[in-house]
């Protein structure tokens, strides 16, 4: 009979720093903000437990529900544009860079550069480019005879959100591109050669061999996009301000949360309702990630080359 091994105490010691730091700076604030969302202020200024009343207010009262659904709708569109514009184009770039075109390194660097710039700079630069008074967008459009297309992109309810989404796509496209490229490069050459020997063209090879092999990366990129977009805030705040104009056309959950939690100009802060918005954001992101984990990742077969 083999002796029972003693409990591996050293594992606890190794885990402790990470667990402590993570608990202190992530888990504790998370639960504290959830707790805050279950409270509200008393007329005297103290705080009192109210259960889910803040959430009922959020969905039940028009004054809260309307801005909330507006922000959620805008956020969904913001995400959809990233999902269906940024990621496919990122994949296309990756596929092109994976072939033997000249100067792939230069292209790769250029496309990736905006990603490492600060959002504030991106917002400022694009505000200047699109500025109706001195922006270059009008001049560029005129050169191509498209002067009639020139509009105050960031100032119209119909165009503001799409414009902002595309600016964000422009900035972040380097990330899916790099992830897809890394996955494509990992595919062994002999698989592609076998396909070529069987008479498959580039198109067929991509869709029948390469794409199925990078499906795990497609999943990762999607979930990263999802989490990133439903947490988004900085770009909208930097270009449109906390009121996310015009007429809240570019208001997303992040800006709605910011205004509510911290207040704005004469608007006093309401940390309780703000926390409720944060709670709903957490729920949305959690749902998305769980769908990915159980609906997508579990079905994937592990591929070993």
């Amino acid at each position, binding site marked *: 009979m083999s002796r029972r091994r003693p409990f591996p105490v050293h594992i606890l010691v190794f885990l402790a720093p990470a667990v402590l730091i993570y608990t202190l700076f992530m888990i504790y604030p998370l639960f504290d903000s959830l707790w805050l969302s279950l409270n509200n202020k008393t007329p005297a200024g103290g705080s009192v437990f109210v259960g889910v009343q803040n959430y009922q207010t959020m969905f039940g009262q028009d*004054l809260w529900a309307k801005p909330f659904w507006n922000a959620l709708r805008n956020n969904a569109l913001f995400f959809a544009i990233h999902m269906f514009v940024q990621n496919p184009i990122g994949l296309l770039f990756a596929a092109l860079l994976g072939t033997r075109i000249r100067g792939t390194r230069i292209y790769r660097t250029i496309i990736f550069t905006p990603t490492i710039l600060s959002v504030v700079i991106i917002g400022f630069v694009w505000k200047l480019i699109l*500025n109706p*008074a001195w922006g270059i967008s009008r001049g560029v459009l005129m050169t191509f005879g498209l002067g009639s297309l020139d*509009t105050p992109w960031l*100032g*119209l309810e119909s165009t503001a959100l799409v414009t902002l989404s595309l600016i964000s796509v422009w900035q972040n496209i380097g990330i899916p591109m790099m992830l897809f490229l890394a996955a494509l490069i990992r595919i062994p050459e002999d698989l592609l050669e076998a396909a070529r020997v069987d008479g498959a063209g580039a198109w067929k090879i991509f869709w029948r061999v390469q794409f199925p092999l990078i499906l795990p990366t497609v999943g990762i990129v999607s979930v990263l996009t999802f989490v990133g977009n439903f947490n988004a805030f900085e770009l909208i705040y930097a270009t449109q301000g906390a*009121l996310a*104009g*015009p007429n809240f056309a570019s208001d997303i959950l992040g800006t709605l949360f910011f205004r509510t939690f911290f207040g704005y100009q004469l608007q006093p802060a309401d940390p309780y*309702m703000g926390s409720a918005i944060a709670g709903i954001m957490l729920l949305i992101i959690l749902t998305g990630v769980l769908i990915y984990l159980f609906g997508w990742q579990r079905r994937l077969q592990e591929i070993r080359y």
Partner: protein
Amino acid sequence: MITAPMFKRFATFLLRLASLVGFETVWAQGKVQLTIESWRTDDLKIWRDTILPAFMKKNPNIEVVFSPTAPTEYNAVLSAKLKAGTAGDLVTCRPFDKSLEIYDAGQLVALNDLPGMDNFSELAKAAWTTDDGKTTFAVPMASVIHGFLYNKAIFKELGLDVPKTEKEFLAVLDKIKANGKYIPLVIGTKDQWESATMGYQNIGPTLWDGETGRKDLIKGSAKYNQGGFLAAFDALAKWRPYLGPGYQALAYADSQNLFAQGRGAIYPAGSWDIGVLRQMNPKLDLGAFKPYTFESKTECIIDDHPDIALGLNAASKNKEAARTFLSWIASAEFAQLYANALPGFFPLANVKYTLDDPVAQEFVNWRKDNKASFRCSYQILSRNANPNNENDLWNACAQILNGTETAQQAADIVQKNLASWYKPQQGT
């Protein structure tokens, strides 16, 4: 074990310490030091080199130090310092609720009996007075005034006269538009607040009878979607055809630049713009005219908005000296110094002072001939987080200028939102 020499040394140390403290006290009796808390970091040099030396020359036994914090951090830093008891003797106060909170917390002293307080009108004191109007807790320092700035060179080139009525105003705009060389009215809607502040609150007081209308709104007997307040939305809507290309995406700084570069003729302004525009383009030939009157309302009422005041920290140990300083703030000497150091911020005391900047002087002159009021949403009405009256006004006015809402629609939304939480507006 404590040895004798050690004890001796310790005792000498204690004695020295005591003598030091004693010396400090004596020194402090000779000269009292006051510290001013403020968010006006921009004005540090003006206070240090111009304003404070003038006071200290007259009061050699009081030393005053101006110690500002960054504007965005001021509210938080001040409230932390007040709680910890480390805040300066004099506290610069933002208008309305932010300062009222501090007073209600017992951290500011009532100043009703301060010598010099009678230099201020009720209107000037309103921003730092309790809701019942009985207690004033800060000495008003300055206000900003709204009006219109215009480019004199363009007016001369097109042979235009300064408009006094809405009819003349629109006729002037029509002429500039017909000429086609300049933007008639330089204002953008992207940042939203200019539409409300430089638009609605600029021309509005004339239409809602100034203080009468503003107080009726607080009492609940006036409404945003009726009478003068609705008329002001309508008047604002008439600006729409005269705005520059792409104005929906023009930010505040863009408008300032366009006007400073001489690309626009008329600029709805706050008086603080004078200093900014002079800096952007010293050669700009600047003129000013006051808010125009209407066929139905022939008496112009200006928006003279209280902006900054000085209060006395309840925990201050030098209250007597602080009160001496506050009385001086209410004096003509301070007004003269402050007004010229910061053209565009106008001292509120009813004392005589003259300004070197002719345009700034023009703004102040309006006070003599006209009644005044201030932004209608600032007192009491913007206390609620959601919906917030001031934010609603920004959005409504921007929508009116964008043409996405009519004046009536915008007014109805603002009124409905106000009535949703504000009791006096919930009657019939």
